[in-house]
């Protein structure tokens, strides 16, 4: 079996670049579980995913879990499914609550970081700490993914090295969470991660090309 055939329909070059990339995902709920599946299908080679929760029956309306997973740690359940898509993907599943004090231990190696928490307070400290500790590594957040419909209100906003996907208005406290809209924002985050990883490599490649041209001019080909 040729595992690379999984990615034969990918855009040209994407798999070769993504398979050497590491993406961190903080949270494995409606956002994180769907993001993880999408990134593995896209060809990302290594994921670090952290969540201390176990699957509950109320998660099945929007998270990438099944009845048989209820009671299992979310990161263990998602790891199983990710390996069923691509047995060669490397998954670091962290069954710990992510806090200000420990997130560096888990996500310091990420090329791109994705915030997939549920609570706004947690999203807030993740942004404030990430921009201080990792000002040159992108952080892709989500805010405003509740309710249904209104796809046209969803956007990705960039501020420094922080990207925010969603409408920045709707809240699960008032609007509820529906798979159709949660999955949209999860895909927006995953899509931005793929875009940034591809851009980063292409930019490096361009820099190398530029350097080669400079050397040719100075020293001849």
């Amino acid at each position, binding site marked *: 079996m040729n595992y690379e055939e999984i990615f034969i329909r990918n855009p040209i070059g994407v798999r070769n670049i993504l398979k050497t990339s590491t993406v961190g995902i903080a*949270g494995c*709920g*409606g*956002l*994180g579980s769907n993001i993880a599946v999408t990134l593995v299908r896209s060809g990302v080679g290594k994921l670090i995913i952290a969540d201390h929760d176990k699957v509950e029956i109320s998660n099945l309306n929007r998270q990438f879990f099944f009845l048989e997973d209820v009671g299992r740690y979310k990161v263990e359940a998602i790891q199983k499914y990710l390996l069923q898509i691509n047995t060669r993907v490397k998954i670091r599943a962290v069954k710990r609550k992510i806090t200000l004090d420990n997130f560096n231990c888990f996500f310091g190696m990420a090329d791109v970081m994705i915030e*997939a*928490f*549920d*609570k*706004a*307070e947690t*999203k*807030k400290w993740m*942004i*404030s700490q990430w*921009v*201080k500790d990792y000002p040159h590594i992108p952080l892709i*957040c*989500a*805010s*405003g*993914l*509740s309710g249904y419909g209104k796809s046209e209100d969803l956007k990705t*906003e960039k*501020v*420094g090295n*922080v990207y*925010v996907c*969603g409408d*920045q*208005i*709707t*809240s*699960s*406290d008032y*609007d509820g*969470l529906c798979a159709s809209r*949660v999955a949209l924002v999860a895909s927006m985050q995953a899509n931005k991660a793929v875009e940034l990883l591809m851009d980063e490599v292409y930019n490096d490649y361009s820099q190398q090309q530029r350097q080669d041209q400079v050397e040719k001019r100075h020293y001849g080909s």
Partner: protein
Amino acid sequence: MITVNNRDKIKWKKDITVADILKIMGYDYSLISVHVNDEFVSEDDYSEQTVPDNAKVAIIHLAHGG
């Protein structure tokens, strides 16, 4: 002139702070992330940090859900 969220314009004045801008815009301090010219501003600094003329201020509203 200060631009907020690529949309709203606030007249710049000397020593205007992040806290002044949030007050003008009607934001309270909870569950937002503020960035001036792409630089994150800590909540502890809202009252002290002045905003330069022609600055671009981003106020990200953080909503529950995930």
